[in-house]
């Protein structure tokens, strides 16, 4: 063994292989300076006998030894964090321990920015780094360049393996993704009945689209049994038929859970849950955890949402936008009706001229009255409805302040314009001013007194109602 050529780079190997020299263990006690000069002991050809080494040299030797061992580089260590201190320079010193031992660790200031995760006393962590020896203190330490809560490494490995397997099954295939219905009438919700997710989703739906009916299938969203519970909830929602909607199935399902630790969110990486999401007969929106959390169930979802609130927003249309759209249609409706009426007035005028030139008076009267009655009905329909519209829109405006004043004001302006137009259209507007229409029982309009005799029955149409009368006396005079 000692015959082996010594590697000039690793002279200590030979030194280590030698059986401990008896003098060596006593060297320090035997008296300083009793041996040969230490400076000469480095060479491989050092003479036998007690060898006394300066601390610095031995420490350097140990340092090189530690640095040279590949097992002490690129190292993962798991343990519980003991004392933590931050130096004035910003480096973080802490110990990692288990039942048997402890290990000094340091994260330099620059590494701390990258690592982000701060060790706290009592936490179980997994640290990555290398072992080195800090010569001034003679202490070996773990120089940490990555730090995670314990369990993460394990979960991360399982996550990647499962993700690859499920992707290979095609569960995350974009071609599988179904679009969400534009107008969901009923939504299924799979989440915890006591969680923040339910609260958030209710708030968003109540504000954004309260027209939707929500059916909650409560499930356990963390811990043992959660995957089975989630799968059962999805199955219940998928099979549910809403009697109030004629036995129809739900339009979509939201699967949600609020933020939590990686372990808390783990059920959403469970193979059974991922399969159940992919196999759902209804489109599924999955919103789990915070923006930064990623779960496999999200990959299998038809729509992936960053959070439960976002899931709710993606699931339904926005009320404010729809209210604006409905208001616009209402204005177009009013404007179109106004145009129809003015067209009607022009037609009436044309007909009147045509009929008057033909002079068949009975036909003229009947025709005029028909059109007049129609316009009268139109006036009542448009006028009355626009009035109630205006009131209703004003009331709706109180609830939707953004749209209120402009909607109501425009509706009232339209109402006034249409009414003004209608007032001049109707023949009854003339009666309102005190005129009357006098007709024979056959319906012919009476224009000349000379055509009538005393005793003839006549009908008088007034603004409101009519009179059946008889001629008392004929006064045949000029116009």
């Amino acid at each position, binding site marked *: 063994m000692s015959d082996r050529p010594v590697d000039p780079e690793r002279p200590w190997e030979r030194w280590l292989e030698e059986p401990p020299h008896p003098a060596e263990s006593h060297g320090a006690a035997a008296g300083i300076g009793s041996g040969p000069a230490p400076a000469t002991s480095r060479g491989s050809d050092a003479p036998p006998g007690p060898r006394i080494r300066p601390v610095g040299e031995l420490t350097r030797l140990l340092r090189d030894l530690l640095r040279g061992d590949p097992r002490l580089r690129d190292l993962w260590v798991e343990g519980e964090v003991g004392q933590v201190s931050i130096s004035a320079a910003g480096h973080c010193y802490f110990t990692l321990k288990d039942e048997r031992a402890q290990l000094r660790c340091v994260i330099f200031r620059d590494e701390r920015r990258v690592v982000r995760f701060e060790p706290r006393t009592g936490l179980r962590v997994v640290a990555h780094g290398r072992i080195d020896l800090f010569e001034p203190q003679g202490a070996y330490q773990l120089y940490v360049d990555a730090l995670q809560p314990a369990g993460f490494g394990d979960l991360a490995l399982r996550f990647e393996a499962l993700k690859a397997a499920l992707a290979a099954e095609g569960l995350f295939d974009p071609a599988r993704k179904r679009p969400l219905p*534009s*107008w969901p009438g009923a939504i299924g919700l799979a989440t915890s009945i006591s969680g923040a997710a339910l609260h958030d989703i209710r708030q968003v739906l*109540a504000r954004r689209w309260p027209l939707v009916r929500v059916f909650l299938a*409560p499930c356990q969203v963390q811990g043992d049994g959660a995957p089975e519970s989630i799968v059962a909830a999805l199955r219940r929602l998928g099979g549910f038929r809403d009697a109030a909607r004629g036995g129809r199935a739900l339009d979509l399902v939201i699967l949600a859970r609020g933020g939590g630790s990686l372990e808390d969110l783990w059920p959403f990486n469970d193979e059974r849950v991922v399969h159940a999401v992919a196999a759902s007969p209804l489109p599924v929106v999955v919103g789990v955890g915070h923006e930064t959390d990623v779960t496999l169930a999200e990959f299998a979802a038809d729509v992936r949402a960053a959070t439960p609130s976002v899931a709710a927003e993606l699931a339904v249309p926005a009320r404010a936008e729809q209210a604006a759209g409905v208001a616009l*249609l209402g204005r177009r409706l009013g404007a179109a009706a106004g145009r129809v009426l003015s067209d*009607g007035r022009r037609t009436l005028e044309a007909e009147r001229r045509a009929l008057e030139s033909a002079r068949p008076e009975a036909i003229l009267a009947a025709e005029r009255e028909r059109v007049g009655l129609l316009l009268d*009905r139109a006036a009542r329909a448009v006028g009355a409805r626009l009035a109630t519209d205006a009131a209703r829109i004003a009331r709706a405006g109180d609830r939707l302040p953004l749209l209120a004043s402009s909607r109501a004001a425009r509706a009232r302006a339209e109402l006034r314009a249409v009414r003004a137009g209608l007032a001049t259209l109707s023949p009854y507007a003339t009666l309102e001013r005190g005129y009357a229409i006098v007709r024979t029982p056959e319906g012919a309009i009476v224009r000349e007194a000379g055509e009538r005799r005393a005793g003839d029955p006549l009908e008088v149409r007034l603004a409101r109602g009519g009179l059946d009368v008889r001629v008392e006396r004929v006064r045949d005079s000029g116009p």
Partner: protein
Amino acid sequence: MSDETPTPGAPIAAAGTPSDGGPPADVAAMAFDAALGELQQVVARLESGNLPLEESIALYERGVALHDHCARLLSDAELRVQRLVQQAGGALRTIDLSPDDAEDEA
């Protein structure tokens, strides 16, 4: 849940005369999207013109009923959440979940 459009010339207005105030029963039962879709059709037809006056009025009345229904749904709707409860036989029953249910729980 009817989403038929009125047939031209049919006496549609009979379903809701101008004086009775309430919308025709079929409109009152319509889902928002069905009512909105028909309202869009009504407005488009009325805007295209070339309709007899009587039909225009009937369309207008129908349009107003649809518009009111949509506006009312948007302004009056309150979110209703029901909880699915599995019964012994496996059948599902629903119970209303009031707004403050469950939110006090841990």
